[in-house]
């Protein structure tokens, strides 16, 4: 027994030894060659069952593989593939093949053969489909290799007759993506192959238009579209087949067929096709337009959306067909009935206003001939009428969009679709309403609104959605109206709007400004009424602070710019108000030439003469100032501070006067201020005084260095339109500031350790500067950096104390860097419109709970505001909160302009007295090199994002808000 036990012990012991022995080389392998292939191999060999193997593969696929080891991994995978009996594991391996061949830096041509070979032995359709999918990936990774392509195409042809839809679908996809665009010229290119691969891809794909499986039919259509996208010219024969598929039973087929028909209509717009069951012929694009229009009343809404969208881009269609899309015949008991549109138009023409009073004014009129009534939409008839009345708002939206595109290219169509678009202003879904307002604005150059239409349009001004109202204001800015009644109506409604939603003030004023300047002759007869002047009596002077009165004045003054007779109608106080408004709302009130009045206002005369010429002269002035500054040789030159001071002042004033150049002038001024600060800091006598005595002065210098640093961040991130050159200059200033800080630190602090580390850090900064701006270095001649780089070998070898000394002398000797201005430079600005900060009523809320504060601000020249703009709330006790607005809170009303409408939530413990909090906007920045941060594999990255500085720049004024948290009552 004992012997037996002993034997077992030995047995087990020996087993253990064996296992460790086996694993040892595996470990060694991993150490010597850190490739994933080895690890994978071990894992796969260890797998006892297929589920285990699948598990290993799944975990394996989550990790990236280096380009060098891909091939090895693939070999191992394939080896295992042939051994594996379970199809799910083979499927995973097949998908991994595709995934791996996408590895950047790896060229999959070495595994093509192996991948293709796997196909021959595969029985499972799913795995086969996956393999083809991977081959597709491999093929698209090798666009330059026609031989591989030919082979893959051949493989696809061979498997096209597979019985599984999945395999056929993939084959078609492969053909679509890799099919040869033109047949190779030389038939003798390679011996046995040409028969299959040379066949016409299009005819082969189109054979599958009639496949029994809808998914294959869809794939065939998609493959054909893919060919088109890759630049192959699709044969016209396909057209008939595609048209037949429009009546397929399956929606995805119909949807793809719509696209196909569209593509062909764009390729062969002018070919002639016969109309079946008649001997007439029409242009292909018209025929296609009719057929796609028909799809607008399809059973599936996806197809309807597709069809409606597509219609918009068929601009070559004949006007006759285009106008049919708006055809609408109504009838009641077989009698012709007029549409509401027609009735409105008639009323308008007959001069009668207001409708609907009479019972049965929509009573049907003449009898219709039953033969002429078209019940089912045939061809283009009424396509948009259907689309706009569709039950799904997605379809309606698409139809509106298409209408817009077509109307923009055809003024006559624009005129016709006006009624329909105006109708859409009353859609039940806000998106559609908004969309149709935008569309109307886009085509507004073609149209003039009738009174009844304007009436409908203006009714929307009362909408509670701010977006809708603002879109409408925007629309009114561009609208032409026909009569003076229209102007009156518009003004009335806008004033009503102003009354109901006082926050719309600026938008309404702007709208009236354009309305006035567009229709001076229509405004003229209204002036006495608008200004309530009377020929004999003096009327009371209206309240100047009334927004409604200001609105009226804006309208009148803008009309008066191009109507010189108008000022004669003004009363005395109007002139006074003009002067006031011209000053306070100069962006809304234009300069007027007022007869019999002296041009007292200096501002006016400047502005009257201002044109493009003054911009040029200002530009010249700016350049001259910069040139003058550039004469300063180095930072210690005498008289330099005075010159800089003067120039800064000039530039600041220039920015105020000339808004076009505000950005550039501001930029220059800030830059020069940095230089000035540096200069002053270095000029101080303190550098010659011994250390203990200079503590006080040190503080001012430290502050200056810090300020330069801050300003440099502002320069970099607050201005848009900077080129690499300017960025280099800014970084250079920052480097100078850092050098200054280092010197100061060396003088005040005594810890050598901290000095060493900050010296190292500085050297790193210099290196990174060199790396980043290698191309800019030649422009930085005679600068601090250039000198520094010359001394770099010496610097990095010597002791910190010496380093500081070298730095000090270089810094003091280096010259002033020239600033070159880029073409366009804009400063990011933000204006908080709301809260206004004028309210004396505190916002009361129970302490501990939250209160929402509405914020409305416009941002100009801010790039990517969704990520960079933050709201800061400062409480009186010094607490500050930074709030990140939602991306959806940003709208983009114009180029370089954003609008932030958001709510910030405030909360605080109880106060005894209402107090003011401050709200402002911040611009967040991070100066990291974005390329390095692209890889998120944080564990692997060795450099922890070097030189990343994150911070915020306040770029709007403070707005004060009264709040009053009350203690909760118990």
């Amino acid at each position, binding site marked *: 027994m004992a012997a037996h036990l002993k034997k077992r012990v030995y047995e087990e012991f020996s087993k253990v030894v064996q296992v460790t022995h086996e694993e040892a080389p595996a470990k060694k392998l991993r150490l010597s060659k850190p490739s994933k292939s080895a690890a994978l191999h071990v894992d796969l060999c260890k797998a006892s069952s297929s589920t285990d193997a699948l598990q290993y593969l799944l975990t394996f696929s989550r990790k990236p593989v280096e380009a060098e080891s891909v091939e090895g991994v693939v070999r191992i995978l394939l080896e295992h593939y042939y051994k594996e009996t379970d199809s799910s594991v083979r499927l995973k391996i097949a998908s991994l093949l595709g995934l791996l061949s996408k590895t950047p830096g790896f060229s999959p041509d070495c595994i093509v053969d192996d991948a293709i070979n796997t196909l021959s032995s595969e029985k499972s359709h799913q795995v086969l489909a996956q393999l083809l999918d991977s081959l597709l990936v491999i093929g698209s990774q090798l666009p330059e290799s026609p031989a591989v392509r030919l082979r893959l195409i051949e493989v696809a042809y061979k498997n096209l*007759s597979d*019985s599984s839809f999945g395999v056929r679908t993939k084959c078609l996809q492969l053909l679509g993506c890799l099919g040869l665009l033109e047949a190779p010229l030389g038939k003798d290119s390679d011996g046995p192959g040409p028969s299959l691969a040379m066949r016409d891809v299009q005819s082969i794909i189109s054979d599958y238009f*009639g*496949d*029994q499986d809808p998914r294959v039919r869809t794939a065939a259509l998609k493959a054909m579209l893919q060919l088109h996208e890759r630049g192959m010219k699709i044969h016209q024969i396909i057209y008939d087949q595609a048209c037949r598929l429009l009546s397929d*039973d399956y929606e995805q087929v119909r949807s793809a067929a719509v696209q196909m028909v569209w593509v062909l209509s764009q390729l062969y717009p002018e070919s002639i096709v016969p109309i079946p069951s008649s001997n007439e012929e029409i242009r292909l694009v018209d025929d296609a337009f009719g057929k796609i229009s028909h799809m607008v*009343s399809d*059973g599936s809404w996806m197809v309807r959306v597709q069809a409606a969208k597509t219609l918009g881009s068929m601009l070559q269609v004949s006007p006759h067909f285009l106008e049919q899309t708006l055809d*609408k*015949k*109504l*009838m*009641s*008991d*077989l009698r012709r*009935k007029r*549409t*509401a*549109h027609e009735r409105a138009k008639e009323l308008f023409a007959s001069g009668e206003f207001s409708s*609907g*009073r009479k*019972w*049965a004014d929509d009573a049907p009129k003449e009898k219709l001939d*039953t033969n002429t*009534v078209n*019940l*089912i*939409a045939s061809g283009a008839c009424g396509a948009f*009428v*259907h689309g*706009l*009345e569709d*039950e*799904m*708002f997605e379809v309606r939206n698409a139809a509106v969009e298409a209408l817009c595109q077509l109307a923009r290219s055809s003024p006559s169509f624009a005129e016709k679709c006006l009624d329909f678009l105006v*109708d*859409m202003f*009353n*859609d*039940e*879904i806000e998106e559609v309403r908004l969309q149709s307002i935008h569309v109307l604005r886009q085509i507004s150059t073609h149209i003039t609104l009738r009174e009844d239409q304007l009436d*409908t349009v203006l*009714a929307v001004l*009362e*909408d*509670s*959605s701010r977006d809708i109202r603002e879109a409408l204001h925007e629309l009114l800015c561009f609208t032409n109206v026909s009569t003076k009644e229209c102007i009156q109506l518009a003004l009335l409604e806008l004033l009503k709007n102003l009354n*109901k939603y006082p926050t719309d003030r600026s938008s309404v004023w702007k709208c009236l400004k354009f309305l006035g300047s567009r229709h001076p002759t229509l405004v003229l007869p209204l002036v006495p009424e608008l200004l309530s002047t009377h020929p004999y009596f003096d009327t009371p002077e209206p309240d100047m602070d009334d927004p409604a009165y200001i609105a009226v004045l804006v309208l009148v003054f803008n009309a008066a710019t191009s109507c010189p007779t108008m000022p004669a109608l003004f009363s005395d106080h109007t002139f006074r108000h003009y002067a006031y408004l011209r000053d306070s709302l100069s962006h809304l009130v234009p300069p007027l030439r007022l007869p019999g009045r002296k041009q007292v206002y200096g501002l006016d005369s400047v502005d009257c003469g201002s044109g493009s010429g003054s911009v040029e002269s200002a530009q010249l002035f700016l350049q001259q100032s910069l040139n003058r500054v550039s004469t300063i040789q180095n930072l210690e030159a005498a008289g330099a501070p005075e010159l800089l001071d003067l120039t800064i002042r000039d530039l600041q004033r220039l920015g105020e006067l000339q808004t076009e150049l505000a950005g550039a002038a501001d930029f220059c001024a800030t830059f020069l201020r940095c230089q000035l600060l540096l200069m002053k800091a270095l000029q101080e006598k303190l550098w010659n005084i011994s250390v203990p005595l200079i503590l006080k002065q040190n503080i001012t210098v430290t502050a200056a260095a810090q300020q330069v640093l801050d300003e440099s961040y502002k320069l970099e991130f607050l201005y848009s339109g900077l080129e690499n050159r300017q960025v280099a200059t800014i970084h250079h200033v920052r480097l100078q500031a850092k050098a200054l800080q280092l010197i100061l630190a060396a003088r005040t602090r005594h810890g050598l350790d901290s000095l060493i580390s900050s010296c190292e850090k500085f050297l790193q900064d210099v290196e990174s500067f060199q790396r980043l701006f290698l191309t800019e270095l030649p422009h930085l001649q005679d600068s601090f950096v250039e000198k520094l780089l010359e001394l770099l070998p010496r610097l990095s070898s010597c002791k910190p104390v010496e380093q500081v000394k070298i730095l000090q002398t270089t810094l003091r000797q280096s010259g002033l860097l020239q600033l070159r201005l880029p073409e366009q430079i804009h400063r990011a600005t933000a204006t908080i419109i709301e809260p206004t900060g004028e309210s004396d009523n505190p916002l009361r809320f129970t302490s501990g709970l939250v209160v929402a504060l509405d914020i409305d601000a416009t941002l100009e020249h801010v790039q990517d505001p969704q990520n960079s703009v933050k709201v800061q709330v400062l409480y009186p006790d010094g607490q500050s909160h930074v709030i990140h607005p939602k991306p959806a809170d940003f709208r983009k009303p114009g180029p370089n302009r954003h609008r932030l409408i958001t709510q910030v939530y405030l909360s605080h413990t109880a106060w005894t007295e209402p107090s003011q909090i401050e709200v402002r906007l911040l611009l967040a920045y991070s100066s990291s090199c974005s390329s390095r941060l692209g890889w998120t594999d944080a564990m692997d990255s060795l450099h922890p994002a070097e030189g990343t500085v994150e911070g915020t720049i306040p770029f709007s004024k403070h707005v004060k808000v009264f709040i009053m948290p009350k203690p909760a009552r118990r």
Partner: protein
Amino acid sequence: NMPEINVTPLGAGQDVGRSCILVSIGGKNIMLDCGMHMGYNDDRRFPDFSYITQNGRLTDFLDCVIISHFHLDHCGALPYMSEMVGYDGPIYMTHPTKAICPILLEDFRKITVDKKGETNFFTSQMIKDCMKKVVPLNLHQTVQVDDELEIKAYYAGHVLGAAMVHIKVGSESVVYTVSVNKYAKSHISAWIDKCRPDILISESTYATTIRDSKRCRERDFLKKVHETIERGGKVLIPVFALGRAQELCILLETFWERMNLKAPIYFSTGLTEKANHYYKLFITWTNQKIRKTFVQRNMFEFKHIKAFDRSYADNPGPMVVFATPGMLHAGQSLQIFKKWAGNEKNMVIMPGYCVQGTIGHKILNGQRKLEMEGRATLDVKLQVEYMSFSAHADAKGIMQLIRMAEPRNMLLVHGEAVKMEFLKGKIEQEFSIDCYMPANGETATVTTNPSVPVDISLNLLKREMALGGPLPDPKKPRTMHGTLIMKENSLKLVSSEQALKELGLNEHQLRFTCRVQLQDPHSDPDTLHRIYTHLKSVLKGYTIQHLPDGTVMVESIVIKVSSSAEDTNAKVLLLSWSYQGGEYFFTALCIVKRLMYQ
């Protein structure tokens, strides 16, 4: 004798009202709707059930009853039929219909019995008993009535819970639909898949009408209400309790929300409140907009619309009131009308049709002085507006539905004969399908061409597929060999071997032999060899063997030569072939004959 589907309208055949259509399909009898006629108070009020059976109960003759929606002209005769005539089978209707139908039936009963004093009418208990027989339907749910008959409900427009029904027996099918509301965008929407039924039975009330877009009408309506409210006037909207009223409520509610209006909207109490409750419950049965906003709140939980109290009518300031009944002939709407009629700032909007003789009809025709009871006259100063909202489909909607479902035949009911005639012509012209419009009691017969499903064994299919070409080409039919076994109502196609095995039969070899007499001087083996070599040269690609026992085999054909004892030149050629080898035989025979007569 082809199978046929018979459709007989008991009501609504070339007529409007009391919908009741009998369908017999594949041996099943189905009743579609069981409505009453509003225009009659006598026996003509209900469908003539004696058409089905003279005496006794209907249960034996009907397999099921399907109700499309809750309007009384579609369900009003239901308690009468099930409880008084007698029917115990299943009655199918959608959930909302089941909920609302008894309310309307009870209301109808109250008016007839309590107000008009009729006797011999169904009682409340009967309505309850009747509703117990109801089986509720879900949308797109296929319900198996029995082994063969299945029904499936689709969403129809019209009113809450209205359904199209797809009835299917075997491969024959019928779709029945009330007016589908495709174009008029109300709070309800419809869709059907391409089910290609044998018959599509559709209502055709508005067969000769093409309507303007709903949006225009809505805008007019809203504009009028808005203007009056801004003037400080009051708006009265007389409505019927169900359907229209809810639609208008939603419309006003959203408009109030959109325009940020504050004036109160009231809704007269009573029936409508209950109905609103059901609309709230069945929110999923409504349109996209309502369903979408449901995430935030239930649209039917009106925010601006409150219940009306009699005293509110005298409140100052603007307001909107919905009040029943719709034709201003009695009740709350009339009371309010009397109070408000004197002020020209106010407005009354009639949203529907008014019967002659009612006040509604009078004012719509411009009458400004009304005689009230007690010889008092009422000056009508308020503005009178008319607004047509109808939930019925127009001609385009019906055509659209035909396009969607692609039926083989069309059958029109619930409409006037003249109008149907027009639509019928149009349908036949556009779709080139037959269209029927039977009158009440008349039977329309449609013969169908049903496909007979046959089970095929997988092995046989695979074998046949392997024989010819890689893929079956859908354009070209292909013949295949197999044995059709008909057994206990099922058909099976199997290979002959399997058939033999299943039936327990032995396989019989069938061989045919043909004798060909010919003159040939050579010896038997020589002749045979000549034949062999010749065949070999002519028939390439066939297996031809010269067997040692003196025969030649061409595939399965055996050729043997024997000479008679008396005349060695007169040879007899024996050709023997099995039943399967028939095709080759004639080729082989021709070749041999040609050789011999050379």
